[in-house]
């Protein structure tokens, strides 16, 4: 079972990972976007950890709802609403259960990814965060406990965006010139799924 602490740990690890990788995310964004992805996510996740410390939500769903709200309120750009919606939709799906099974988390993340696709109007192959999130939720649907496999699928998905031509977001304005660069959104999405696997490995440690 995954308890509230697990979710707090997941998001705290997300924040650490985003903090470490912010320069790389910004570099990737400089190539095909506007060079702010790392800085924006870092600001958002710093707000998430501050809010988690301050408000101490009491259930997995409440952790995700709080985090989603913070991202929407602080990130801006497309990433704020998209990541905010991902976490909020997943949080709503979990309801107020004090503990959830990996299968329930997998189903909730599926809801979140569906909501992201609906909001942004993107599909896998458009060179967006969905190219990492979709393979991750597919992997989780098949094996809900295999977070490591989901993380690998997301990382592969992010890598697979390199040759793609962007059809959504700011990179789409570049047309063919968007090809040959890894998508920053898919890259940050892969970081979040990797943090999920790490949260499992660090079970029992303080969030």
């Amino acid at each position, binding site marked *: 079972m995954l308890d509230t602490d697990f979710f707090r740990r997941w998001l705290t690890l997300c924040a650490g990972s985003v903090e470490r990788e912010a320069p790389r995310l910004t570099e990737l964004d400089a190539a095909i976007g*506007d*060079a*702010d992805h*790392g800085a924006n996510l870092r600001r958002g996740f710093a707000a998430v950890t501050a809010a988690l410390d301050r408000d101490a939500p009491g259930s997995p769903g409440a952790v995700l709802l709080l985090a989603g709200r913070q991202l929407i*309120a602080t990130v*801006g*750009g*497309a990433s704020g609403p998209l990541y905010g919606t991902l976490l909020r939709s997943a949080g709503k799906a979990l309801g107020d259960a004090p503990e959830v099974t990996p299968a329930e988390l997998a189903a909730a993340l599926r809801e979140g990814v569906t909501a992201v696709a609906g909001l942004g109007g993107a599909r896998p192959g458009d060179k967006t965060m969905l190219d990492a999130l979709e393979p991750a939720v597919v992997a989780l649907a098949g094996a809900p406990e295999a977070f490591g496999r989901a993380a690998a699928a997301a990382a592969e998905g992010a890598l697979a965006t390199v040759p793609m031509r962007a*059809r*959504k977001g700011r990179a789409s304005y570049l047309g063919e010139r968007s090809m040959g660069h890894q998508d920053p959104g898919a890259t940050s999405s892969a970081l979040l799924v990797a943090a999920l696997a790490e949260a499992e490995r660090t079970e029992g440690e303080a969030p």
Partner: protein
Amino acid sequence: MRMLINVPETVVPDALRGMAAAHPELTVDVENRVILRRDAPVAGKVGLVSGGGSGHEPLHGGFVGPGMLSAACPGEVFTSPVPTQMVRAAAAVDSGQGVLFVVKNYTGDVLNFDMAAELAEEEGVRLAKVLVDDDVAVADSTFTAGRRGTGATLFVEKIAGAAAEEGAPLEQVAAVARRVNERSRSFGVALGAVTTPALGKPTFDLPPGELELGIGIHGEPGRERRAMMTSREIADYSVDTVLEDRRPTGPVLLLVNGMGATPLLELYGFAAEVHRRLAERGVAVARTLVGNYVTSLDMAGCSVTLCQADEELLRLWDAPVRTAALRWGR
């Protein structure tokens, strides 16, 4: 990197504190990042709220004041503002006559303004939205996020602002805003890349002797790179590209816009070439505005925006305006 900043993290609030100091006729809420007309809400008047990433100054904060915007919401550099900013702005400028959101077509701006609209409507504000998408360098197809909003934003904000100042109801203000957008087209050229404070180096490498054609306002590369051209050649290329997309059937409003690092000496010279080319192509110019209005930090370059005018649009364009960056008529 040599920039007149303290640290990259505070460039936006630092600039807002400066705006507050320089413009006592505005209310600048540095904490919540909203720039307001001091007399808002104006009784009986529709409110106009716009916003977008910072780095495009004077857009949008420089256009807040009588005859133009009621409020502006600046985001982080090149990043759209967050919904709470627009909700606060809408609540502050709504006199009961409703609020028009002027939104440039970028994924982030659209998503955040949509969320804001939902929240503001829940709070009882009547809302309309106009999406500005004038950039002909972007193919408007399923392969992109749609045309970008650039120079036409100034035309939309000025003309819709004048309509609101006259007391036009929300539906009418929104309709004239949409008409301006439908009749406007832009094309931009970069002579140098932009350096964002967060990245601290140029966002793309543009060697001397080359230029980017068809750029937006975020330091993203354009649709094509070529060997450096003369002002005359750039004017021909820009005007022809705009006219290819939409051929105006009457006199036009013309904006010759600087991207931030191109001096007025060059912009006026370019404006002369744009006038020459428009005359050659049989397009009459009713009004011309030259200057740095919709910029991209320290990008060198320019853009051309044409809007097919009519009697009403000309009257609203000429109507008095009193903002930090645009003022005439009284």
